[in-house]
């Protein structure tokens, strides 16, 4: 594995007595899509700002593309495209003018600028609206223009803060598909923050769960669920045509299986909770015992449950809500 492109070590940011980010350690490798997932006010935006040198950490270091983001932000900003959560444009300028301005600030040669901005607008699907003033843009269009803004500088890393906020469901799907496609085609590293787990689940290779300034868990979804639910990460539910008698004669036999931890019976439905996937084995067993199986349902824990679980354990704490600092 290569050196991580984003390296955060003990990153801490304190506002008065409140720790917005608390000793964050995180490595993100080249080419992966990392989702920073957490509720409002968890410190996601603050972390991102520190990665770009837009705010100074109280302690700890943020290395992005091999440069210290706090003391040397310019080379970082050359390689990182950042889209803030509420991206704004100069309203009196058209989309193309806004884009060209950013291109010029990134020293894109004047000769290529025209071609490059048309290309980028084509990618995000705004070619038809390029001569419209951005004041007339909808939220989704602004978001896409924001992505164009990020792409025009040919970044190595893209950081998107709440990119799906306020876009309709189809817009979100298209937007995320676009990000994924771009990342795979050009080998871009993407860091996106969101409190919408489904969005993150769709595109991210790895996820970090971030609550109250701390990274509670990180990894891919199956690793996370294993980490969180331990031996109870697989659930198989089987429906039978007739009611299951209580007590069920086979229950004790199944309980003896090593991989089954819990059996729940309700009317004609059986639910087995275990550490491994034993669905096929279970079905074979039931059929051999003469039961008709009419439906088999395999559940594994999704991000939803993971998320829920983390917030449950944190709900006792008073989470100070969103952007209290801004």
């Amino acid at each position: 594995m290569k050196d991580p492109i984003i390296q955060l070590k003990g990153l801490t940011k304190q506002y008065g007595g409140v720790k917005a980010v608390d000793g964050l350690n995180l490595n993100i490798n080249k080419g992966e899509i990392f989702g920073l997932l957490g509720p409002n006010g968890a410190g996601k935006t603050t972390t991102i700002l520190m990665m770009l040198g837009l705010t100074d950490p109280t302690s700890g270091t943020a290395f992005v593309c091999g440069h210290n983001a706090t003391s040397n932000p310019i080379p970082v900003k050359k390689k990182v495209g950042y889209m803030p959560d509420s991206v704004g444009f100069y309203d009196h300028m058209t989309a193309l003018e806004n884009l060209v301005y950013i291109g010029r600030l990134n020293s894109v040669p004047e000769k290529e600028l025209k071609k490059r901005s048309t290309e980028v607008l084509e990618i995000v699907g705004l070619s038809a609206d390029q001569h419209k003033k951005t004041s007339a843009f909808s939220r989704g269009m602004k978001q896409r223009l924001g992505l164009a803004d990020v792409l025009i500088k040919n970044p190595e890393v893209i950081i998107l803060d709440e990119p799906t906020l306020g876009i309709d469901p189809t817009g979100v799907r298209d937007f995320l598909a676009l990000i994924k496609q771009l990342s795979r085609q050009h080998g871009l590293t993407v860091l996106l923050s969101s409190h919408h787990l489904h969005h993150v689940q769709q595109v991210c290779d790895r996820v970090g769960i971030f609550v109250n300034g701390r990274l509670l868990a990180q990894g891919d979804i199956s690793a996370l669920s294993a980490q969180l639910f331990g031996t109870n990460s697989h659930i198989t539910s089987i429906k039978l045509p007739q009611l299951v008698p209580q007590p069920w004669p086979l229950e004790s036999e199944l309980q003896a299986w090593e991989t089954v931890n819990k059996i729940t019976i309700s009317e004609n439905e059986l639910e087995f909770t275990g550490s491994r996937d034993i669905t096929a084995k279970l079905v074979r067993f039931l059929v051999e015992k003469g039961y008709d199986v009419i439906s088999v349902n395999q559940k594994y824990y999704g991000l939803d449950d993971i998320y829920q679980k983390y917030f449950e354990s944190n709900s006792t704490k008073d989470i100070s809500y969103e952007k209290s600092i801004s």
Partner: protein
Amino acid sequence: MKSQSPDPGPFGVMVHKEIADHIRSWRFAILIALIVLTFIAAMYVSLSNIKSAIGNTKDPDHLFLYLKLLTTTDNSIPPFHVFLSFLAPLLGISLGFDAVNSEQNSGTLSRLMAQPIYRDNLLLAKFVSALVIVSGLFFALALLMIGGGLILTGVRMEPQELLRILGFIVITVTYVAFWLSLSIMLSILFKQAATSALTAIGIWLFFTIFYQIVINLIVKSFLPDPAYLTQAEIISYNDLILNLQRIAPNQLYSDAVTTLLMPSVRSLGPVTMEQMAGAIPAPLPFKESIMIVWPQVSGLLASAIGCFALAYYLFMRREIRS
């Protein structure tokens, strides 16, 4: 033409864009209209009185036609440079009061700051672009006045007059620069554009109207009865009042431009009889006038740079959040 050179760099790009923004804005159009109207009115009044002003042989400056054009008035309206002493702050304030906070409120600041540009370049670009425009405006007006005077009167211009008028323009631009950097500083300090505009206007009003009153009140409270004071003591008190008044930038400005535009002004403070004895009322050479106003000019420059430095200090390490 910066924009046509191969690579103007981010700073050049920003200045270019800021200038374009200013020129296209309604705000600037209104300000230009205001200043041009003032200029025309002042010119009209001075042109209609120029004959008597030139003919007044008791006035040692009566031969400086072009300086007279700028300063003559029949007291119906103040001359142009007095107008400018309160219009120029307005110009500076209105070009700078929303420089940073409007970008922040519209969410463009964080987008801009995520680009590979130095933070101070943003401030400098805001400052330089407004100054470029203001100096362009004033130089155009001065040249128009000179050209118009030349056509209307046919009188040859003294090189000294040209230097004095250019000096006047430079000091005016410096004066605007002070208000501009003050208002840019306030635009960093306050999140709302309206607050920073009101604060800047408050400071402006304070210095133009209340400051003199306050100084007089304070000095009067401890000034003994002048009847019991010696000549030297009266002069020292007088100096004190004048020096206190010179804290106000508009006082510095009007001292400086009056001296430049009226060559016979030889001192800005009280002059004793001994100093006056033997002096022939004659215009001073340009260099001498400059020597007199040098402290004023450096004072203005220093306050402009001071405000800018403070703005820089406030902006450099602040958190950029949308």
